[in-house]
């Protein structure tokens, strides 16, 4: 028994660099050999709510998509962005992107570019989507969009004046949008959209956010202030799968070019690596706790 205890105590004192190595391998191997591990993905209630909310939008509805993430959180949020844009364009919804983070400008550009280059949708800038430029100020910008968007924005990202953009006709405040979708990795993020715009002006809001933000956002989801949430990479993978199935099942219509290939998103392929790493983390936590307990008992 003492021998087993010794092993556990030694495991608890393992050099952290071995743990880094094991985590790296647990992520690297499933990514390099995806066929070795194939874990099925089940959709959760919050993801289904987001999907249904977007699916209930009608042709010509106006949706504001807010980009509040950057390169550091791109692996988690970007697959959501692409899937959300695909879903919106497949319904003939008018999309307005706004970055509230400096890097959000690039992320919005990349997401739109990815969707346009897929040639899956018959979309034209200024007719089907418009990209707003970055404005510094965070919550103040959200408040400006909520009260008078033209007090902050007068041009799109390419410096084209709103008066020359047909899509911007009649857009004065957040109340003129039918839905807001927030893609956030911090502050300003979904909490600020709830507080400074959507609650007061009764505009439906859904969000996709990083895993670390989920526990802070859940109270808003439970109260219905945020309608469903895409929680980190698993949320992205679930939503991607739902959109992929939806696009495949969809009959050809004027919004979709069915001759173009429908490619599954990136989050789904990443989930095996995520799951293996989680199992390893659980094992580390269990071993660490046993080791700590045995060490404390021995010292006493």
């Amino acid at each position, binding site marked *: 028994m003492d021998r087993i205890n010794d092993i556990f105590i030694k495991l608890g004192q393992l050099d952290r660099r071995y743990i880094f190595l094991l985590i790296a391998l647990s992520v690297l191997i499933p990514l390099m050999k995806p066929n070795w591990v194939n874990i099925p993905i089940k959709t959760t209630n919050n993801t289904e709510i987001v999907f249904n909310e977007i699916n209930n939008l009608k042709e010509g509805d106006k949706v504001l998509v807010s980009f509040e993430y950057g390169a550091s959180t791109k692996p988690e949020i970007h697959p959501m962005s692409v899937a959300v844009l695909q879903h919106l364009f497949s319904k003939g919804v008018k999309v307005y992107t706004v970055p509230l983070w400096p890097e959000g400008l690039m992320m919005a550009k990349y997401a739109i570019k990815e969707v346009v280059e897929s040639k899956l949708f018959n979309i034209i800038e200024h007719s089907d989507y418009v990209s707003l430029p970055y404005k510094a100020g965070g919550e103040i910008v959200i408040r400006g969009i909520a009260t008078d968007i033209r007090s902050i924005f*007068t041009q799109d990202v390419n410096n084209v004046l709103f008066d020359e953009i047909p899509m911007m006709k009649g857009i004065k405040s957040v109340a003129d949008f039918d839905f807001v979708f927030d893609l956030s990795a911090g502050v300003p993020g979904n909490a600020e959209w709830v507080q400074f715009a959507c609650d007061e002006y009764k505009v439906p809001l859904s969000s996709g956010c990083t895993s670390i933000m989920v526990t802070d956002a859940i109270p808003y989801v439970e109260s219905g202030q945020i309608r469903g949430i895409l929680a980190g990479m698993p949320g992205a993978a679930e939503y991607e799968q739902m959109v992929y199935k939806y696009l495949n099942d969809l009959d050809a219509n004027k919004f979709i070019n069915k001759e173009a290939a429908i490619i599954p998103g990136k989050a789904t392929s990443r989930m095996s690596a995520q799951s293996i790493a989680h199992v390893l983390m659980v094992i580390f936590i269990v071993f660490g706790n046993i080791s700590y307990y045995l060490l404390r008992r021995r010292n006493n």
Partner: protein
Amino acid sequence: MYEMIGVWCVVLLTLSIFSYLYGDNPFYKAAEHAFVGVSAGYIFTITFWDTIRPNLFGRLFPEAIGAGFEFDGTYIFPLILGVFMLFRLSKKYDWLSRISIAYIVGIMAGLKFYVFLNSNLLTQIKSSTVNLSGTYFTIINEVIILIGVISGLVYFFFSKEHTGVIGKISRIGVYFLMIKFGASFGFAVMGRISLLIGRFEELIEFSKPEYYYSTPAVLLFMIVAIGYWAFRENNSPIQD
């Protein structure tokens, strides 16, 4: 050509940051400094061209800027407050920057007070009530939330000693808080692993021949360089 340079930079900087797992080293330091510098430069540039120029100068000099705004003389005040902020760099006049900071704090406090009261307090209190017309499952869920809210609030109630009934309720509050912290930790781990997956995916992609095996090449170079650096450190005379 430029794309290839970008790819090699991505690989070098990613591996440089990862090298911190081995220990502090010149690659990590260089990547960290480059990140700080590039971020500051990017944010300054984008803020100037996308916000200060159109939104401030566009209202003060509408003809010259042509951002679609009309002339508004009141924007001279934000300009003055903005200039005051720059006086933080001066030891003699840094008190001027406090006027700008006071303005920002005042505006934010006023705005936050209202929105927090509306969205976080009133709506959350409303959603904490138990709806008895729901299903058994939702009623049980809502009762658990209500117990969590009350016991959590009691835990942070410091005007009375946590003994007796108060002590027991606050103890329940502690358990709820621990569950919340555990969930937050779990989500934090998930987030970090997701970021690692993102980086590894790119490193795997850039290992391909079309990128001239940039990942293995840079990795090998860094291992040799860090090895040499560690060898030199170990053999250097200890200085007082």
